[in-house]
């Protein structure tokens, strides 16, 4: 068994690709980087898978079935006893818990001219390339709650759950299944982490902060010490100069006092 869908070069050896040995594949991770998400999974469409079973002149459709991958035995049959495909909906099987549900009805992909993935860069062709190449399970958010919705509902999947998918080829006029692939490998939707688990503690302090804090603290201390020292020296310095001044004054007073006696003596003579 070999799968020919691993690279975007599609299967040339059409007649050797037997559908019963192939499985649906997830869309190329180089193209669709956001896949799978919490609630969606994008699958490659089944290119060149059913071409061996197509008869000319008849119209065919491809049905996609999805179910949860579970340990317990649940019925994974997608057809009833007369090969008619089941019409189960998402609500009926509890989102895939109880069995497969029909997620989509697609046209048979054109094997002769598959979309060139390099064209995705071209803005005009990008939509077409995406529509032709892949199918996004879980794309429709409103069909579950819309009472007027009549088509096949493809509601968002559950997060942190494994799903398996299967494509079947259905003859439109007869309404019976012509061919089918295997169930895909289990594909898991992403799990969420709560935002409260994010740790915002910055860890250790940066070197710059430590340098600034320590040096500035030391400088402030030195300045205050310098202030007290200069005030202290200023006060003791002024006391010294005050004592020298009082001695200076008393000497001049004594010099002035004897002179009036000398002048009065001369006046007496």
């Amino acid at each position, binding site marked *: 068994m070999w799968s020919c869908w691993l690279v975007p070069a599609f299967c040339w050896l059409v007649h050797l690709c037997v559908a019963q040995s192939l499985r649906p594949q997830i*869309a190329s991770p180089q*193209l*669709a*980087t*956001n*896949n799978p*998400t*919490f*609630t*969606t999974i*994008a699958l490659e469409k089944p290119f060149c898978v059913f071409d061996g079973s197509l008869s000319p002149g008849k119209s065919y459709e491809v049905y996609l079935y999805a179910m949860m991958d579970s340990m317990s035995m649940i019925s994974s049959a997608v057809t009833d006893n007369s090969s008619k495909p089941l019409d189960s909906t998402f609500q009926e099987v509890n989102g895939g818990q109880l069995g497969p549900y029909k997620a989509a009805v697609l046209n048979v992909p054109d094997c002769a001219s598959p979309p060139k993935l390099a064209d*995705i*860069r071209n*803005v005009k062709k*990008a*939509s077409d390339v*995406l*529509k032709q190449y*892949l199918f*996004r399970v*879980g*794309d*429709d*958010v409103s069909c579950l709650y819309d009472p007027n919705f009549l088509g096949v509902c493809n509601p*968002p999947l559950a*997060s942190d759950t494994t799903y398996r998918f299967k494509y079947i080829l259905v003859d439109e006029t007869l309404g019976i299944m012509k061919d089918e692939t295997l169930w895909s490998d289990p594909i898991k939707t*992403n799990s*969420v*982490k*709560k*935002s409260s688990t*994010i*740790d*915002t503690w*910055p*860890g250790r*302090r*940066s070197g*710059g*902060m430590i340098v*600034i*804090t320590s*040096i*500035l*603290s030391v*400088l*402030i201390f*030195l*300045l*205050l010490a*310098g*202030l007290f*020292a*200069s*005030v202290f*020296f*200023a006060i003791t*310095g*002024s006391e010294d*100069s005050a004592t020298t001044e009082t001695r200076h004054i008393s000497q001049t007073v004594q010099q002035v006092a004897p002179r009036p006696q000398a002048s009065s003596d001369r006046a007496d003579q």
Partner: protein
Amino acid sequence: MAKGDNGVRCFQGLLVLGNVIIGLCGIALTAECIFFVSDQQTLYPLLEATNNDDIYGAAWIGIFVGFALFNLAVLGIVGVIKSNRAMLLAYIILMLITYAFETASCITAATHRDFFTRNLFLKQMLEKYQNPEPLNNDDKWMSEGVTRTWDRLMLQHECCGVNGPSDWQNYMSKFRNINSDSEFPWPRQCCVMNVQGIPVNLDGCKLGVSGYYNDKGCYELIAGPMDRHAWGVAWFGFAILCWTFWVLLCTMFYWSRIEY
């Protein structure tokens, strides 16, 4: 002062020069801090919502400290030239107070810069961006600020999330509560837009096809200006304080040597 008049004149000249430099640095500090406070990139709402906006407080202190330094430098020059004890004492006391404020500003800016991690902004973005049910008016104000800022950042700089669009896919968020993952794996602003402001290819954006969504993270655009702000306030203030320390010490020495 009788001893060595030349020595005294030289010392006075040095003090005057020191004060001139302090005055000029004060004006520069005021200008720099006004520039930071004016918040050219309008990132303040992000800081406000983290309750960690003290680098703005440090910048505000820097504005007033710079102005005070300029005025005190003028006072110091006049006091030194006139050798007036009262003036110089006033200068020393006021300078010490200004010194203390500037020290506080520098330490605050340097310390709070350390809190800016990717996780801080990531958590805030997840909890406040497009928060549909804020708890109170304060929360509402902060949530609206965060939403407005992120919308503008994502559109202007073509980036998404803090580390990348995967942030929206890896964590639960208030945004995710009201916007289903299927329709909005990440905000529409993460999509590459055309000139009308509409995503070029919505399916490509939702699937993560390169070229139709912005896969760059916005963290550098947030942290870059904030780092420059914090370091500018902290280190320039530190440099001024180192210089002012010497001028102040010499002025104290000069003051203690003046005779009445």
